[in-house]
C-alpha cells in the first residue's frame, strides 16, 4: 500500500520533471496576462523569440489568463512564491492586488534595474510619461517607496459618459443638447415619449447602477475601499475636476448618507416605477447580461458607459447599427484607481528578474515588439492596407490578447476601424486628463478589515436595489444606513479620513 502510494507519487514527480527537461541554453521567462482570448500563440511566439533572443537574452513563454481565473491564479502564484512565473499583469481594481502585493513584498522593486540596464531603462523612461511612473511608485514591505511595476497606457485618464442612442432620440424629436440641458433629473418626459413610441416592453434607461450613481453625484472610487460594493465617496467639483467639491471639501464620506445620494435614489425610484428601467438590472446575476444584450441590440435610449477614447469607432458600437454618441459628465480625470489601471510587475520569486526587466522595457518602448505581441504576425493575423492601416484577418480570432492589458498601446499602429491618426489623438486625449486632488491616495484598509467585510455584506444587500430604484428609498435607505452604522461605518470612516488627512498633510 505504502509502496504503491510512493510509486504513484514518484511517478508524478518524474512526469513533472520531464516537463522541465527540454530547456534551451537561453533561460525562459514567463509572463501572465489578464483577460485574453488566445488559442494559438505559436506563430507569434516564434517571431517574438527570434526578435528578443539577442536583445533580451531569454525565451518568452506566455500564460494567457482569462478574465474569470486571473485573480485566483495570480494570487496563488505570488502567495506561493512560484518561480515559474516571472512577470504578471497587475492593477488596482482586481482584488486591489497591486498595492497590497507590493506591500507584501510579492513584487520586485524595479528602481535598481533602471540603473543596471541604462539602455533599456532610458528607452522605457522616454516612452512612458512621468505621471505613469509615479502611479506605479508605491510603498513596499519596509514602507519605502519603489517603482513596483511598468504602467501600461490603459485609460490614463477616465471619463464617465451617458451613452445615447441618437437615432432613436431623433425619432422621438429630441437632440443630444436637450438631453444635456434637461439633465438626469429631467429625463422623465423623454423616457415617457420613448415608452409611448416603442411599446411597453421597451426600457429606455439602461444603467449600470453603481456607475450611474457616481455619474450623477460626481464621485470617484477610492482606491483601497471595499471592491465588491464601494462604501466611500469622494465628491469632486464637476466643473473643475482638479478641485474637491466646494460643499464637502477634501473628505471621504459615507456614500449612502449624503443628500445627493438620497436625491439620486429618489429619482431612480421614480424612473423605475414608471417602467423606464428593466427590473432585470436590479438583480446582480442578470444585470450585466441584460445590459450587454440590450446594448448589442441598441434596445435603449440612454445608458451609462465608462468611456475609453475612440470607443464610438469600435466594432462593437458600430455593430449596434444606430448612431451612438457619448455625452461626458465631466472632463477626463485621473485618480489613483485609474492611474493603476493596467500594469505589469515582476514576481519577486523570479529567477530571471534582469531578463524580465529588459523584456518589459523593450515591450513598452519598441513598436515592432508591441505590435507583434498585441496584433499578431503581419500577413497572418493582420494585413496592412494602402494607407498602412491594420486590417485584421480571420486568424485574429485565435489570437486576441487584451490590448490595453499588455502595456504601452500608444506604440500600436492605427487600425482601419479606428482611422488614421487615432493613436495621436488618443495620446492627446489622455494627456489632457486632470488629476483629482486626492490622486495618489491609497486607503490602507487593514486596520478596519473586519468592519469593511461586515459593511460590504450589508451594502451587497441594499445598494444595487437602491441604485436601480427597485426598492423604495423612503423606507429602505434609513434601514440601510442603520444597518451600516451597526456594522461599524463610523470606525471605517474615521480611519479613512485620518489616513486622507495624513496623506494631504504630507
Amino acid at each position, binding site marked *: 500500500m505504502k509502496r504503491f502510494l510512493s510509486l504513484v507519487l514518484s511517478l508524478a514527480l518524474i512526469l513533472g520533471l520531464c*516537463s522541465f527537461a527540454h530547456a534551451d541554453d537561453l533561460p525562459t521567462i514567463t509572463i501572465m496576462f489578464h483577460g485574453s482570448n488566445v488559442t494559438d500563440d505559436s506563430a507569434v511566439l516564434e517571431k517574438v523569440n527570434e526578435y528578443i533572443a539577442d536583445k533580451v537574452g531569454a525565451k518568452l513563454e506566455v500564460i494567457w489568463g482569462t478574465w*474569470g481565473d486571473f485573480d485566483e491564479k495570480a494570487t496563488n502564484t505570488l*502567495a*506561493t512564491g512560484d518561480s*515559474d512565473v516571472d512577470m504578471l499583469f497587475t492593477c488596482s481594481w482586481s482584488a486591489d492586488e497591486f498595492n497590497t502585493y507590493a506591500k507584501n513584498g510579492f513584487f520586485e522593486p524595479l528602481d535598481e534595474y533602471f540603473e543596471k540596464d541604462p539602455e533599456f531603462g532610458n528607452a522605457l523612461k522616454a516612452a512612458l510619461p512621468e505621471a505613469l511612473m509615479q502611479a506605479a511608485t508605491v510603498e513596499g514591505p519596509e514602507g519605502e517607496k519603489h517603482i513596483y511595476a511598468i504602467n501600461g497606457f490603459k485609460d490614463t485618464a477616465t471619463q464617465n459618459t451617458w451613452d445615447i442612442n441618437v437615432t432613436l432620440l431623433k425619432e422621438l424629436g429630441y437632440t443630444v443638447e436637450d438631453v444635456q440641458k434637461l439633465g438626469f433629473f429631467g429625463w422623465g418626459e423623454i423616457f415617457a415619449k420613448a415608452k409611448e413610441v416603442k411599446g411597453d416592453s421597451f426600457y429606455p434607461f439602461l444603467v449600470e447602477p453603481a456607475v450611474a450613481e457616481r455619474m450623477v453625484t460626481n464621485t470617484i472610487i477610492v482606491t483601497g475601499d471595499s471592491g465588491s460594493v464601494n462604501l466611500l465617496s469622494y465628491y469632486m467639483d464637476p466643473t473643475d475636476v482638479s478641485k474637491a467639491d466646494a460643499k464637502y471639501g477634501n473628505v471621504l464620506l459615507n456614500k449612502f448618507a449624503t443628500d445627493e445620494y438620497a436625491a439620486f435614489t429618489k429619482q431612480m425610484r421614480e424612473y423605475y416605477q414608471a417602467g423606464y428601467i428593466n427590473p432585470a438590472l436590479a438583480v446582480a446575476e442578470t444585470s450585466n447580461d441584460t445590459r*450587454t444584450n440590450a*446594448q448589442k441590440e441598441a434596445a435603449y435610449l440612454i445608458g451609462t458607459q*465608462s468611456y475609453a477614447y475612440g470607443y464610438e469607432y469600435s466594432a462593437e458600437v458600430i*455593430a449596434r447599427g444606430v448612431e451612438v454618441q457619448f455625452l461626458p459628465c465631466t472632463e477626463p480625470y485621473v485618480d489613483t484607481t485609474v492611474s493603476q489601471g493596467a500594469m505589469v510587475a515582476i514576481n519577486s520569486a523570479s529567477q530571471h528578474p534582469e531578463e524580465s526587466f529588459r523584456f518589459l522595457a523593450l515591450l513598452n518602448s519598441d513598436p515592432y515588439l508591441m505590435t507583434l505581441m498585441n496584433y499578431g504576425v503581419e500577413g497572418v493575423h493582420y494585413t496592412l492596407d494602402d494607407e498602412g492601416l491594420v486590417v485584421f484577418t480571420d486568424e485574429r480570432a485565435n489570437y486576441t490578447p487584451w490590448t490595453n492589458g499588455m502595456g504601452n498601446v500608444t506604440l500600436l499602429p492605427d487600425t482601419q476601424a479606428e482611422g488614421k491618426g487615432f493613436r495621436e489623438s488618443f495620446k492627446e486625449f489622455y494627456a489632457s486628463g486632470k488629476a483629482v486632488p486626492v490622486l495618489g491616495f491609497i486607503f490602507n484598509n487593514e486596520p478596519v478589515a473586519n468592519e469593511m467585510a461586515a459593511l460590504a455584506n450589508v451594502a451587497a444587500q441594499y445598494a444595487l436595489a437602491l441604485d436601480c430604484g427597485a426598492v423604495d428609498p423612503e423606507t429602505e435607505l434609513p434601514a440601510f444606513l442603520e444597518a451600516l452604522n451597526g456594522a461599524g461605518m463610523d470606525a471605517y470612516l474615521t480611519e479613512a479620513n485620518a489616513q486622507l488627512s495624513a496623506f494631504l498633510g504630507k
Partner: protein
Amino acid sequence: MTTAAAGTGKKIRGRTASLNRFGKGTQAGFHIVLGIFALLCIIPFLFVIIISFTSEESIRQIGYSFHPLSWSSQAYQYTFQLGDQLWRSYFNSFLITVIGTVLSVLITFLYAYPLFRRDYRRRNFFNFLSFFTMIFGGGLVPTFVICKSVLGLSDNYAALIVPMLFSPFNVIIMRTFFQTSVPTELIEAATIDGSGEYRTLFQIVFPIVTPGIATIALLVALGYWNEWFLSLLYINKNMEIIPLQYLLMRMQRNADFLAKNSAMIGADASKAAAQLPSQTLKMALVVFIVVPIACAYPFFQRYVVAGLTVGSVKG
C-alpha cells in the same frame, strides 16, 4: 419473564408486517408525493434542454421559457464547429474520471482493509493519520506548493488526478462497510483453509464488499467528473488537457468577472462581454456534461441499493 419477552417480540413483528401494507389512499398519497419529488428533479434538467434548443432571439425577448417563441439547434451546431477543444475536453473528462476512479477506489480499498482488520497492530495510528486530515487541512497555499513544487503537478494529467486520489471520508465509509459486512470468522476460516492474505482479500472479501466499492466509485467518479478547480490551479499553459467542466466554468467565471468589474475595465469589458458565448451555448454544454453521468447513475444504483439492503452475516 421469557414468555413475556417473546410475546412482545411477536407483537412487534406483527406490527412491522402490517406496516408494510398500506391502504389505497395512503399509497396514492405516497405516489403523489414521490411523483412531485421526481418531477422536481427532472424539470430543471428538461428546462436546461429546452433552453439549449431555444433560439437566441427568443431568449432576448422573453427570457428563459418552457414555451420559447422559436426553436433552434444553433447552439449545438456551434459546439460541433467549436471542434477540437470541445472534443478534446470531453475526452479529457472521460479519461480523468476513469483513471481517477479506478486508482482512487483501489487506494481507498487497500487503505481501508487493514484498518478493519483487528489483528493489524498499527491500525489506530493509520486510522488517526487519515482522520486527522479531515479536521485539519493545510489550506490552499501549502497544498499548492506541495502539489506544484514538490510533486511537479502542473500542466499534466497527473495534476488533475493525484490531488483527489485519497479521501479520508471514503476510507471511513469503506472501513465501516467492511466492519458491517465482512465477519472476522470468514477471514479466520479462510486463513485456516490455507488462503494467503492476497487471496483472502481479492477472492473472499472483495466479492462481499462490491456494493461498498460501487458506492465509493460513484462518489469518486462524480467528484472527478465535476472537478474544475484543479484545472484552474494547476493548468496554465497546456490548455489541451482541461476537462469539459472547466471549459464551461471558465465561460461562467469570465461572465461573472466582467459583470463585477465592468465599471473598472470600462469599454474593454463591453468588448469582451460581446465575445462571450451565448446563453444557449452554455446550456448545450451543460447537456453535454450531464448526460454521461446521468447515464452512469442507474448502473451504480443497482449496487448502491443492494449495499443498503443486503445483510452479510447469516444465522
